[in-house]
């Protein structure tokens, strides 16, 4: 479904990604794990068109996305839940969802989509007239995910959904990810929180200083000696 071939990217003269290749099949949940500064967020930014790759090919459902601006990539069916959620703090929960449904094709289905998102996250229905900035971290993550789902995507990119949240809330967020999976979305999730992300994804890639070091099924990675030693402290 999504395919990256030899993607390199960076900021100015700084290169953050080297020759990254990655495949996601429809219906899969894939994790990209790795330490801080490995280039995980850069990878997400390249896929969603916020940053242009300096070389390499990016395609989605057989169609090249390499030169498309961000708003066209959402149109193609990839929604991005950005790092730190990036909600519009001074807009209400409902308005945040409306922005998520900005595309003409999504506007037509706003009523049913929002009903569906509220059914998925009943807490948001209670808070829908509240300013997004006044919500708790976990609730904000629900809005961020809900906002991305409003565009009726085929695939969801999630950038560090657990970042900056309390341990208990992190558990809730991973439960959310699990539910999103069950709804049939293809998910690509970037996380530092390796132990928990491996519980919800089928396969994962280990990214270190801008290169893919390892890849395999969750079970394989959980048993991999380098991963156990370096990332799980076992």
């Amino acid at each position: 479904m999504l395919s990256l071939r030899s993607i390199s990217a960076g900021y100015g003269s700084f290169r953050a990604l080297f020759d990254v290749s990655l495949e996601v099949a429809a219906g899969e949940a894939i994790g990209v794990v790795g330490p801080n500064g490995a280039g995980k967020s850069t990878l997400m930014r390249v896929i969603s068109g916020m940053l242009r790759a300096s070389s390499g090919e990016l395609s989605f459902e057989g169609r090249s996305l390499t030169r498309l601006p961000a708003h066209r990539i959402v149109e193609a069916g990839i929604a991005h839940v950005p790092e730190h959620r990036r909600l519009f703090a001074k807009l209400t929960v409902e308005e945040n969802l409306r922005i998520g449904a900005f595309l003409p094709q999504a506007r037509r289905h706003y009523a049913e989509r929002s009903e569906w998102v509220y059914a998925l996250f009943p807490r948001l229905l209670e808070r829908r007239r509240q300013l997004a900035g006044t919500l708790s971290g976990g609730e904000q993550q629900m809005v961020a995910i809900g906002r991305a789902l409003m565009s009726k995507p085929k695939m969801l990119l999630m950038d560090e959904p657990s970042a900056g949240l309390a341990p208990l809330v992190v558990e809730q967020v991973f439960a959310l990810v699990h539910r999103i999976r069950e709804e049939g979305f293809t998910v690509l999730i970037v996380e530092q929180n390796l132990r928990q992300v491996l519980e919800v994804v089928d396969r994962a890639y280990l990214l270190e200083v801008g290169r893919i070091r390892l890849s395999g099924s969750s079970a394989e990675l959980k048993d991999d000696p380098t991963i156990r030693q370096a990332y799980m402290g076992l």
Partner: protein
Amino acid sequence: MDIYLLEAVINGILLGGVLALLALGLNLIFGVIDVVWICYAELVMCGMYMIFWLHSFFGWPILLASFAAILGVAGLGVLLHLLVISPILESAPINQLLATGGMLFFLQSLATLLFGTDFRNIGLRLPIIELGDIFISYSRLLAFGTALIGAVALYLFLSRTYLGIAMRAIAQDREIMGLMGVDQRRIYLITSAVGGALAGLAACLLVLQYDVHPFIGLSFGPITFMICVLGGLGNMIGGFVAAFVMSQIIAIGGYYFSIEISYVLAFVFFIVLMLIRPQGLLAR
């Protein structure tokens, strides 16, 4: 209360309506595009000339001419964005200020070249309303009412429509708008058109009260900027309130002293307030 003071207060409120409309337009542009149109009042001047020529020269009915001017100035706003703002969107703010400031002189000179420095009047005399001993000009009342309707329409647009919500969102986080499926360039163009249309609407209201000449922008441009800064740049509600504060200072100052002194008072009030609350009246 002194009847003349009451009349001054009422006139101040009426003046505030048009100033509020201008402040809303300028704040909208600043909030969404993050650029200050220094030449905003000059767009109003262009609109006033449009109405003058369409009505007095080509004989269009005033309503039709007004409508055409609103569209015309909206078009000017789009042109301004495409030709001047868009190429320097990423430049330092000072360069943007210089560019739109340059447009101010360009438009003034162009108007002088085309129309000369004569004061032109559309020759429409609207009646004066007498309420007991108070005289209220009908054109001011009309201007106030229309400005309020314009403000309400803008409020509904910003709170109810997808485009309006996107405009408020863009002011909070520019970078992720693309992830929402929003094409920033399109939003900027629409914002420029709406900002221009508000200037056009102000032109329709001001042309009923003032003569048109190439430098008419100077009579309300600076005060509009003061109002926007006073309310907190980009803060719509702040600008709206500040417009009425300023217009009252001008109206009441004009009653006790003279209209010249009242502007001095307004500027002194502005400077003092900037020293005490540099973030603006209503800023949190």
